[in-house]
């Protein structure tokens, strides 16, 4: 079963533990400037949002790379940069519609999320569950559960069907 990083911005507090974990796993230092996942703060709205590579199926970066330095890890589905092949041309950083492939001045190569080989450190480090690593086919499961929770309670046989003109009483929580 393939998994995906599931990001829930409404749970994010902007603490940057994910960036610290990511940079440590990849670079051996605590360095948000080299993190593959980034947390953005929308100050005036009081909102934080983590963002990283979604591991596109038909990945623009893979197609754009002239030296085949971005390869697919069959076990995780991650698109991984092969450092020894990367020539630092940056075409992938232009090709990616989401901006999640980035150039590293220190090495002259690009960096992007590789799902840590199937055990992403950002998800482990997140204290609020804003980042989780879930079944790729069911990234919407938590939201479905939240809606399901608000459906009528009580033993099924006691429930009478709702008249068709009654508006739904519940609203989305997220």
């Amino acid at each position, binding site marked *: 079963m393939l998994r995906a990083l599931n990001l829930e911005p409404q749970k994010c*507090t*902007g*603490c*940057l*533990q994910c960036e*610290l*974990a990511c*940079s*440590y796993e990849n*670079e*051996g*230092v*605590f*360095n*948000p*400037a*080299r993190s593959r996942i980034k947390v953005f703060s929308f*100050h*005036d*709205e*009081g*909102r*934080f949002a983590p963002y990283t590579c979604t591991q596109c199926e038909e990945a623009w970066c893979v197609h754009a790379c002239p030296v085949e330095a971005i390869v697919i890890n069959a076990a995780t589905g991650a698109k991984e940069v092969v450092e020894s092949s990367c020539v630092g041309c940056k075409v992938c950083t232009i090709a990616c519609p989401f901006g999640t492939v980035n150039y590293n001045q*220190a090495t002259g190569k690009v960096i992007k999320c590789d799902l840590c080989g199937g055990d992403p450190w950002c998800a482990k*480090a997140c*204290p*609020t569950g804003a980042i989780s690593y879930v079944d790729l086919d069911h990234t919407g499961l938590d939201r479905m559960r939240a809606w399901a929770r608000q459906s009528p309670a009580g033993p099924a046989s006691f429930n009478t069907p709702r008249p068709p003109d009654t508006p739904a009483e519940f609203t989305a929580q997220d």
Partner: protein
Amino acid sequence: MAWTQNVLRVDLSSGETLREPLNMVWASQYLGQRGLASKYLAEEIDPAVDALSPDNKLIMVTGPLTGTMASTGGRYSVVTKSPLTGAIACSNSGGFIGAEMKMSGWDMIIFEGRADTPVYLYVENEKAELLPADDLWGKSVWEADQRLRRKHQDPLIRVACVGRAAEQGNLYAGVINDLHRAAGRSGVGTVMASKNLKALVCRGTRGVGNIKDPLRFLQAAEGGKRVLAENAVTGQGLPQYGTQVLMNVINEIGAMPTRNMREVQFEGAHKISGEAMHEPRSSDGRPNLTTNAACFGCTIACGRISTLDQGHFTVDNKPEYWGASGGLEYEAAWALGSDTGVDDLDALTYANFLCNEDGFDPISFGATVAAAMELYETGVIDQQETGGLELKFGSAEALTRAAELTARGEGFGKVLGLGSKRLCEKYGHPELSMTVKSQEFPAYDPRGIQGMGLAYATSNRGACHLRGYTVASEVLGIPEKTDPLSTEGKAELVKAFQDATAAVDSSGLCVFTTFAWTMDDIAPQLDAACEGEWSTEKLLEVGERIWNLERDFNLRAGLTGKDDTLPRRLRKDAAKTGPAKGMVNELDTMLPRYYEIRGWTAEGELTAETRQRLNL
């Protein structure tokens, strides 16, 4: 080994910047941040120096765990001699600038002298340069922040900045970083502005490595996070209500200083509490609180982000205040609210925004307004003196107008910027100033929490809750419950809290972790990260050394044991209501014992044995 071992020395008079190696002997004795910078300051300046002269120095300093994955490991401190108290000042802040400074490769930045014209320091990794700040001078923190971002074309810079209050000589101006986090107390921002230094701008891409035992450190940090998550205060209370979780609790036990500390319970507490911040407003149906927010690396996330009602009288024609920003912490809510008798939540939030926007301490400001209100109500000052301000207790209009004037140092705001002590002396009523060593009290009345009286009287930076928070034990039962109305064992309790806190403040961690963590949770994280051996015992010894170093600085600065006192009101006027009804603070029964266990003389001086024992 967690320290970068780099000190950046900035001579503002000559414009030169210089790298020098960190004194590692001192690091082994004083750890980092508060302790280490205090050692540098004590060695490098004459404690009797005029705090606002070029001979004073200002140190921005990180701890060894700043910038690491340890929870709350993002703290930095600003250490200098205070213009408010004449004592050593150390103000601690979270946000992100401390970690950014460390990521740039610096443990500490020492500012000396005074620039001829306004400047700011731009640090990008090893590069450090002083740049002109003429266009930033006279601008608020928030506007200067925007201008710096436009100029550097870099959204990732971090900024620590002084506002107009500091420029105008307000004696309790702070250094604001990341728009709404503050090295807030004792006028450290005033010193920064006196040096013509407007801001520190930082951008670090080197990261923090050099961890002694990385695997052990990651495990210790992980264990620490688990403890925080499972604790009721750090795992639930603080994220949900912030420090404002205390408002109703402290009011209940009758330790909520009210109307310039005339009373100990505030009838409007429930309207300005953490719970109230969650309630939808009747006006626009939205709550005051927008979200909670974390400082760098913090898994507690107690920070409040609030949004004002656009129709509130303070901002109905000011859209620039309609966005979300740093909301009320307990101390600000108390000082701006209960101490002035104002129970209008959005008015307090607006005043708090102004404190952040122009960089002045809401505790000292609120308490100074409270003193002015008492002077006004007793007829000592009138509207002619206040420039038309009707300074009545409970007036949200007066409070917010006073905040606007103080932010800009205009009119009566200039007088309010002197602080409560100087204001009350100016009008011939020093007894109405609720201060210790000229610094205003925080939000715990020592008649209802006896140990706090001793903690305030002996605090090395004047009245302060963050130098020995015995509230934890006396009210919350952390680590064990003691009777808040008894003086028994409080000398020992105060000393233990003071020493432990001095160590935590020197580590790079936030003192709020100690609602859940003991030193036994902190020591393994430091020991795994830092060169040397860092046990609980060693940390407590380091804490005691720091405490005595600060004390020694203050004595050399001219303070004496006579300054270890409380205002007459708290020693003579009994609490009128609540569990402490009929009680005063019994400082005199606690202080001699405290001196004794500190190893000080009956006059509060360090003995030769104490100096020798602590290697001072």
